[in-house]
Every structure is written in structure tokens, then in C-alpha cells.
């Protein structure tokens, strides 16, 4: 494959363009197939898959805030087996470039999940979700610990060989760049930043938290400045490509992430109100080229 001008390489894998759908909002991609030409995208990052199917959280799952969206979906997903047998083939047959997002509650589960993924050569890239704030276990307490990140990423690289491995990080820590460094050290091919920011909402009238688990994950335009500073800091700390995500709602927003040091971007919440955005960004970049980063070393 010759690299096009807007192509982006993440480890061993080259994507035609640097505009991806973020994990979660677009499900397995297929649900949006009537509205988005998935084959035009650099990649679709799937909803995070776990070894077993997960029903997700009970109670209310969505709430709008000023400029943002709180969600408490809680990693509802069909589980690895159904994903691999039912969803994956349609995506691959439909010529959709995929990054499969995975997460696990513990080491043994992670190991098994990786084996299943590794057995499918058509999966060329994996994003390890080390950062979901909406689950009791397997989210933050792994993702906030550089030692465990290293452990998980190293094992993933060992098992997945020449597939690309991205580590998706949480912003809910003092220093996200330290986490990125741990992932890079363990052999990650790229860093995805950021997952949602921990927040909550109260129902003023009833006086109760909106969500059963109380806290939820904040996404959307409100968090853009938080995502941008994460990308900036990480890009000044590691040398592997960074995939920027958080609040991107316009071509201009996308540009900011490349300026801050991202090599690719993901769109999440914005597709809910503007599903045409990813394709518009791709066109804009095809036209004017991918925005150059601000001189990386002077930050």
C-alpha cells in the first residue's frame, strides 16, 4: 500500500486518513452505516469488547450538561464471541478499517480475550481501554497505575505481534504523560487520549444523583481543553503517535489537536448531533493537508 498524503502510520499499520470514530458512541459502526460512509473513515474504533457479554449499568445512562454529555453506559457489549462471529465479519466484508477496543476486569480475563483476538488475523489494530470510569472494576484502578499499564500493554504486544496496539488513557489523574510513558516503554504503538472525565449530576428537584452509580463520564465540547492539554503533554513526553479525542465538533477543533501534537483524531459525542463531521474533516484535510504540529520540542 502506498501511503497517501493524508495517511497515518501507527506502529505497523497504515490508515488512509487520520480521522477515526471513537470507541462507544458509534457502537460497532454498523448502526451508523446508513448515515456515515464507514469506508471513508481512517478507522472505526469499536465499542469496547469484554470477554463475556456485559449488560451495562442499570438506571439512567445519559444526561446532557452545559456543553457536554455524561454517560453511564458501563461497557455494555455483546462479548468477544458474538463480536467476533457476528459483528466483525460484516465490518471486514464491508471494507471498514477497524481498531478493536478491548477491556478486562482482571489479568486472566485480559489474557483470554487477547488470545481470541490474536486468533483473528483480520484484526489489524487493538485499542486497550485502560480508562473507563463507568465500571466498578477494570477501569480506573488499572488505568491510573503506570505499573499495571506497562504489564497489560507488554502482554498485549507479546500476544498480538505485528498488530498495532494503542493504549487509551484516562485524564482523571495528576499526570497523564506518566501513564503514556509507561505504555510507550511497554511497547505500545500509539496512545489514545482521552477517555471521559469523571463527573456527576444531581437532580436538583428530587435531590438524588442522576446516575445509579453516581459518577459518570463527561464527554463533548466541554472537555476539549482538557483533552487538548493531555495530547500536548503526552506529545512532549513520548515519541509514538498520539490519537487525540475529546470534544471535537468542527474542522477547527480537529486542527487544534494536530497542532497540539496528535497524529490522528477520534470523534465521539459529536456524531450524535453531526454525523457528517468525520467525512467533512477528511475532505478538508484532503484538500489542505493535515495540519502541522506546533514545533514539538519547545513546549
Amino acid at each position: 500500500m502506498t501511503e497517501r498524503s493524508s495517511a497515518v502510520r501507527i506502529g505497523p499499520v497504515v490508515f488512509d486518513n487520520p480521522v477515526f470514530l471513537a470507541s462507544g458512541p458509534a457502537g460497532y459502526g454498523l448502526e451508523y452505516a446508513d448515515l456515515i460512509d464507514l469506508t471513508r473513515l481512517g478507522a472505526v474504533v469499536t465499542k469496547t469488547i469484554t470477554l463475556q457479554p456485559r449488560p451495562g449499568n442499570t438506571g439512567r445512562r445519559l444526561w446532557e450538561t452545559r456543553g457536554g454529555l455524561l454517560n453511564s453506559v458501563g461497557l455494555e457489549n455483546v462479548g468477544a464471541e458474538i463480536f467476533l462471529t457476528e459483528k466483525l465479519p460484516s465490518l471486514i466484508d464491508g471494507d471498514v478499517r477497524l481498531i478493536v477496543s478491548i477491556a478486562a476486569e482482571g489479568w486472566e480475563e485480559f489474557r483470554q480475550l487477547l488470545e481470541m483476538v490474536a486468533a483473528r488475523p483480520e484484526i489489524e489494530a487493538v485499542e486497550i481501554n485502560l480508562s473507563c470510569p463507568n465500571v466498578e472494576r477494570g477501569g480506573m484502578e488499572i488505568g491510573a497505575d503506570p505499573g499495571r499499564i506497562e504489564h497489560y500493554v507488554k502482554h498485549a504486544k507479546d500476544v498480538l505481534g505485528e498488530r498495532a496496539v494503542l493504549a487509551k488513557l484516562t485524564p482523571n489523574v495528576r499526570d497523564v504523560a506518566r501513564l503514556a510513558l509507561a505504555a510507550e516503554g511497554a511497547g505500545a504503538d500509539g496512545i489514545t487520549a482521552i477517555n471521559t472525565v469523571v463527573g456527576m449530576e444531581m437532580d436538583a428537584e428530587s435531590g438524588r444523583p442522576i446516575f445509579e452509580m453516581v459518577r459518570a463520564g463527561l464527554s463533548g465540547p466541554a472537555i476539549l481543553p482538557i483533552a487538548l492539554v493531555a495530547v500536548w503533554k503526552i506529545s512532549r513526553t513520548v515519541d509514538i503517535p498520539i490519537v487525540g479525542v475529546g470534544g471535537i465538533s468542527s474542522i477547527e477543533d480537529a486542527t487544534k489537536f494536530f497542532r497540539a501534537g496528535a497524529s490522528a483524531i477520534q470523534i465521539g459525542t459529536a456524531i450524535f448531533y453531526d454525523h457528517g463531521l468525520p467525512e467533512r474533516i477528511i475532505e478538508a484535510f484532503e484538500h489542505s493537508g493535515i495540519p502541522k504540529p506546533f514545533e514539538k520540542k519547545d513546549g
Partner: protein
Amino acid sequence: MSARAKGSFLVSVLRNDPLTPSSSILVLDRPEGFPDAQPGQFISVRLTDTLEPLLRRPYSIMDLTADTLSLLVKVIGRGSALLASQKPGASLDVIGPLGGTSFPYPASGKVVFVAGGTGLAPFIFAARSWRSGDARPEIHLLYGAEAKDELFLELIAGEFTGAHLATIDGSEGYCGDVVRLCEKLLAKGELPVDHLYSCGPRGMVRALVRQVGSRFAEHLTSLEAIMACGVGACRGCTVPVWEGERMVNKAVCSDGTVFAANAVAWEEWKE
């Protein structure tokens, strides 16, 4: 009823007719290529490009003709207020038709609709589209609201075989809630008992299930939930539903909006 292809459309507002002090009917120009739809399906409307509010808002299709697409809009917050203030000539960004299930034409030819508030919308659509077919079902509407000025009386005139109204304050029709009215009419034997279709506040539907559900051969209900994607992707609009012994989370937007009311795990559905 299987889902049909959905699309993204810019539609023009043709008319905005006030119905009650807090609601109106928005008649939109049905755009080229907008697929046919069924009662219980909906569209999702983007209300502003200022991103305030951020999300689209779901609205039931109240009518769909060759030329028009109509919505019944009640103002309850900032998004609906924006929608209700659209003027003729304005253009709206909508996706639709959404919803993987809908209210089927009643097999027995007779059906009872129970509607609360804007839950009337899909039933107007059903009445109008089924009436234009060959067979004309016998439709008994039971329709309730808090008070007379929240009943969309203009809308129901002439659409149904029989219409029974209920208001909590007694300002129109039966004084009390629509579930009790249903019980009363059932007791008098004035309603057919094969199909019950409902749409309205969660409390109303739950009470229907408990108090009169067993009297009908079938009870289908169109549910509401806060939505983000509207297409089954984000898993934000789920409702717990029994599949035999197992409780599973179904997406109102794509597995619904129409569910077997008895299968909904009402006790587990907290919001």
C-alpha cells in the same frame, strides 16, 4: 416490522400551528427520499448549531403524507422550546425514520389505544394511515391528561371509532386517570379485548400493565427514553426487558420503540 433504511435530511417548516398554550403541530415538508414509516417510529431533530443544547431530540411521527411530515411538539425544556418556536421557512436537520419496531395493523381488526399527553402522536399516525387502507380497523381511543387545556381535542376529532377522554381535574370527560377509565369501560364491556396499544408517561403504562393488561390478548407499548444516537449504537436509551428468564437491556431507539408491555421489567427500570 423490520427497520427500513434511515437517512439524514434537511426539512423545511411549512406550518407551525399552536394547539394548546404549551404545544403546537409542526408541519414539515417531506423531503425527497424520506422513506415511508410506521406508527411508533420517530425522527431525531437537531435544534441549533450553537451546541446548546447539544443533542438531537426524538419526536414521534404524528403524520406522514406524500408531501408532509408532522410532529406534535410540547414545550417542556430548552430543546422543545426551540423546536416549538420554529417559523415557516426555517429548515431543520433531522434523521429518520428511526425505530426498529412499530404498532402493527391489528390482526383482529379491533384495537384499544391508550394515550397520555403527547403519547397521542403515534396513534394519530396509526389512525390516519390505517384509515387510508382497504380495511378500516375499529379503534377505541382512551386519552388522558391533567386538564382539558392539555388535551389535543382538535387532533382527535373524527379520527377514531370512539374516543373516551379523562382528565385528572375533571375539566373534560372522565374525572380521573385514563387507566381507571379503561377499567371502567372494560367492566361495562364497552371495549374489544384483543389488542391494547399504549403510549404515554411511564407511570401510566406501568399502571395499565398492572391493572388491565391481563384483560387483553396483547399489550404493545411505545416507550420513551433519553436518547443520544437514536440508532442503537450508543446504548444510552436502554430499558430492561425479560427474554424468558433472562433480563436483557434493549435499546428503545432501535429495538423499540414498540415493546410487548408485559416483557418490560418495570420494577428494574429505574430512572
